[in-house]
């Protein structure tokens, strides 16, 4: 699948001043490039499409380079009887990988860590009080893992929720940055992720300029954190626009 030419801006690379740090790769390594030929602050083209699954209340498909995910949203439906009464709605998230998603054939089982991260990233954006006593299910399936899986899943899930007509304060856009040596590379691919010294993932609601989830690993100085967060926020803002235009496109197509 490829995006229609001229339909939507497909890249969401942050526009940042080229940093003035000296390159860490000296001499013949100076022209170090990323495996897919991108610049350090250049994102993969993002492609979104809503309505990927007919039987779901809402669904979305996202493709960022080799990372391909599909998310479907079911509900709101009645909460299970065993659950306690709740005057706000419940969000149930599940992320799983297909057996063929990874280079080594996997188990295809649920990814508990990602499921809970997805839940935490989305819960702040959804108006849970609009559907009391009920549950919304968000099921994400990673068809192909090509790096930055979790951010793609989160962005795609918020689009699927919007497609299902679940009330939200704003769309949630997610971007991750990897720290390789002294360089920050945005939207890392699988190969880069396996060598990273640290990573930062930021999910935010671009129009409200609010961070819903933030995760770092590795050792960071305050300066690097500042820079990485700025990069992510800028990219999230642009990614939000790409997602919005995808929703508009779908809405205008259904009106015709």
């Amino acid at each position: 699948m490829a995006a229609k030419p001229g339909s939507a801006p497909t890249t969401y690379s942050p526009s940042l001043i080229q940093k003035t740090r000296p390159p860490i790769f000296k001499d013949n390594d100076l022209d170090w490039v990323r495996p897919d030929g991108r610049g350090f602050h250049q994102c993969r083209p993002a492609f979104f499409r809503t309505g990927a699954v007919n039987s779901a209340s809402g669904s979305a498909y996202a493709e960022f380079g080799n990372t391909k995910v599909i998310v479907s949203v079911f509900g709101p439906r009645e909460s299970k009887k065993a659950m306690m009464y709740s005057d706000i709605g419940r969000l149930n998230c599940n992320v799983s990988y297909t057996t063929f998603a990874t280079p080594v054939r996997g188990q295809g089982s649920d990814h508990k860590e990602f499921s809970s991260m997805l839940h935490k990233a989305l819960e702040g954006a959804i108006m849970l009080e609009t559907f009391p006593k009920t549950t919304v299910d968000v099921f994400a399936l990673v068809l192909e893992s090509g790096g930055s899986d979790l951010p793609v899943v989160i962005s795609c899930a918020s689009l699927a929720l919007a497609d299902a007509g679940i009330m939200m304060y704003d769309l949630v856009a997610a971007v991750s940055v990897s720290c390789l040596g002294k360089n920050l590379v945005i939207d890392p691919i699988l190969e880069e992720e396996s060598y990273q010294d640290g990573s930062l993932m930021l999910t935010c609601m671009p129009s409200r300029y609010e961070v819903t989830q933030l995760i770092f690993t590795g050792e960071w100085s305050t300066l690097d954190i500042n820079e990485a967060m700025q990069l992510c926020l800028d990219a999230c803002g642009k990614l939000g626009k790409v997602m919005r235009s995808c929703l508009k496109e779908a809405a205008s197509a259904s009106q015709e």
Partner: protein
Amino acid sequence: MVGLSVGEKHFIQGGIAQDLRSDGRKRLTYRPIYVETGVIPQAHGSARIRLGATDVIASVKGELGKPSALQPDKGKIAIYVDCSPTAAPMFEGRGGEELSTELSVALQRCLLGGKSGAGSGIDPSSLVIVEGKVCWDLYIDGLVISSDGNLLDALGAAIKAALSNTGIPKVNVASETSGDEQPEVNISDEEFLRFDTSGIPVIVTLTKVGRHNIVDATSEEESQMSSAISISINRKGRICGLTKRGGAGLDPSIILDMISVAKHVSEQLIDKLDSEIAAAEADEEES
């Protein structure tokens, strides 16, 4: 989870706004920390930490294993947390499982650093005995005995204490083997190697209640939080990991403020914890 009346909620929130919490602490004061080391003789290292009514145990066990093919020069470290249903009825079954995974993941993220091992509390390459063939696999297990809020900070401190208590047996490689053969190893039961624990970060959780941040929240205070950020910081003041809990969104500048507050708090916490660990070790040797 915690049933509070409207009056109690107001009391907690009002107290935090006036910098006098219901147990008499200020916003950025920890409860007294009690450390006990060597509580589990079966393990290579262990510690128990009490923070008010929060009570956790961490144990460290090493097993000889084979390094993974992708990283032949690194040992493996795994952290698991178990929430016992004896601590609270809600830990039974799935409720405990969810919290356990959440805590395990947060601890792994905060203490083990990036994939390449940068920013890790323990250098994974120090666990290797014969490159590509034999290494120590370190299993760190946390157990929540009693929960009164701030589990993550307590577990982080317990793991730090347990690791400084840990002695891994010295391994002598018997003879040079060639090719693919597994070398023969001899585990000494007299000589033990200790870890350098100075680089292990502490975890500081800042809980946001209303417009203010508090550290070391009790479970009543946690029930009133809008969001919380757990930041792990090492002695050099570098951030080694960060996770956010709670749904409410935060402005990026507030997060940066919280990081600088956490840095300030962490300095005192590291000093306090180090002196407590040293005292506990001295106690253990006496007895």
